[in-house]
């Protein structure tokens, strides 16, 4: 909030001259927010936007209408509509909004729509924050505590029925320890969700958000099974309620459809590597992920994975927890997004850093 004072080079007058950076609000910001965490992924970035002194128009997802209606109510109870307002609707409404010359656009969602947003933003040279997704891998070094890793991976994968942009997408484990991991992971999943999964009547396990997304994930699962993968645990589906139980898949390879797009559902493929370098090379063949998680006790091994790859963020010996800290920048790189959110980093994203030289 206060101007940031910086050094003035001697050639510009040195200590006799004041150099400072003032943080101006960008102006009118647009939020296009997703269905998977409707409140969290609307209000958390909005706070940085407000702290920076902007106004905002929010277009929440039409796929979660109860949540969107409540977002609208909360905003209307808090702000006059010329400060912050909510416009409900589907893609046509988002398209109309994108015709307007917003000063900044914050979008959370998939990479395909992210590209549409960025193209539209280019018409007005609006700046963008794109919180996208991707295939976030988990790399298990042989030095990892598999029981500890399995519990954390299962939690991160099946939370919200796998519909998290930072959820582990797949696991890479060494050929020689694959059987140990599969056995531990199966026991962990069945301990957390029961032998047959949570069940179609479960009140403690979410569903896929709608039939379209359910069919997409189900098709990925069926394609994998038809092409040689096998279910270690889970695999129960129910069309009537968009239900897919927490599922662990073995014998998946990179040619399967499930390895060509972000799964965004409760299906976890396990792939193997011969050397850690092979795992790093495999990750680097794909798009840069939003998250990359490494488990192990061997620091050199962990560093070789972190330093050998590029990702939006990483966690060592856990998954997804970097999202929770307001003191770490959050965001993607390349196909997984651009811009940074949370805490001071979000404030900067919603600010114009204006240099002022007082001579």
């Amino acid at each position, binding site marked *: *909030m*206060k101007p940031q004072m910086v050094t003035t080079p001697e050639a510009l007058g040195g200590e006799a001259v004041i150099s400072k950076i003032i943080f101006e*609000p960008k*102006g*009118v910001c647009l939020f296009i927010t997703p269905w998977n*965490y*409707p*409140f*969290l992924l609307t*209000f*958390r970035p*909005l*706070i*940085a936007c*407000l*702290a920076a*002194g*902007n*106004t*905002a*128009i929010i277009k929440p997802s*039409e*796929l*979660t*209408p*109860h*949540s*969107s*209606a*409540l977002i609208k*109510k*909360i905003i209307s*109870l*808090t*702000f006059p*509509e*010329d*400060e912050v*307002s909510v*416009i*409900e*609707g589907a893609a046509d*409404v988002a398209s*109309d909004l994108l015709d*307007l010359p*917003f*000063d900044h656009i914050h979008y959370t969602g998939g990479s395909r729509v992210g590209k549409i947003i960025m193209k539209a933003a280019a018409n007005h040279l609006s700046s963008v924050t794109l919180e996208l997704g991707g295939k976030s891998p988990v790399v298990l070094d042989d030095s990892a505590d598999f029981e500890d890793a399995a519990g954390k991976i299962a939690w991160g994968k099946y939370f*919200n029925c796998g519909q998290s942009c930072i959820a582990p997408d797949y696991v890479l484990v060494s050929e020689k320890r694959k059987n140990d991991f599969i056995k531990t992971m199966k026991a962990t999943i069945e301990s957390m969700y029961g032998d047959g999964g949570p069940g179609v009547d479960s009140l*403690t396990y*979410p*569903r*896929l*958000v709608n039939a379209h997304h359910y069919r997409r994930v189900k098709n990925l699962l069926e394609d994998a099974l038809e092409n040689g993968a096998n279910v270690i645990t889970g695999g129960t589906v129910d069309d009537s309620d*968009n239900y897919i139980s927490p599922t662990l898949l073995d014998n998946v390879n990179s040619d399967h459809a499930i390895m060509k797009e972000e799964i965004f559902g409760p299906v976890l493929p396990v792939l193997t590597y011969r050397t850690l370098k092979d795992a790093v090379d495999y990750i680097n063949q794909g798009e840069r992920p939003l998250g990359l998680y490494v488990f192990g006790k061997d620091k050199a091994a962990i560093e070789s994975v972190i330093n050998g790859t590029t990702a939006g963020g990483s966690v060592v010996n856990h998954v997804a927890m970097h999202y*929770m800290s*307001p003191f770490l920048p959050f965001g993607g790189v390349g196909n997984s997004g651009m811009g940074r959110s949370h*805490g*001071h980093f*979000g*404030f900067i994203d919603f600010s114009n850093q204006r240099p002022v030289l007082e001579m």
Partner: protein
Amino acid sequence: METQTILGTEMTALFASQQHTALRIKKASAAERIARIIKLKDVLTDNFDLMLKAEYDDYKKPAEEAKLTLGPIFDEIDVAVAFLET
């Protein structure tokens, strides 16, 4: 569940009103920004249980999971307020 959408002309008018306001609140003090954020915090707190219910109604998200995901909103508010106070 029906949603109300607005016409393009209304959208343009809303945008224009926000542009006008943006110029005004650009000069808002830290205390004024904090007050807006705290007001949001209060309304969010009042509607906490309704947020849990809405997520359940949308895709059967269990309350325990929903509570965990609402926590970071309040953490973010506290950090933003502390930052603006400095």
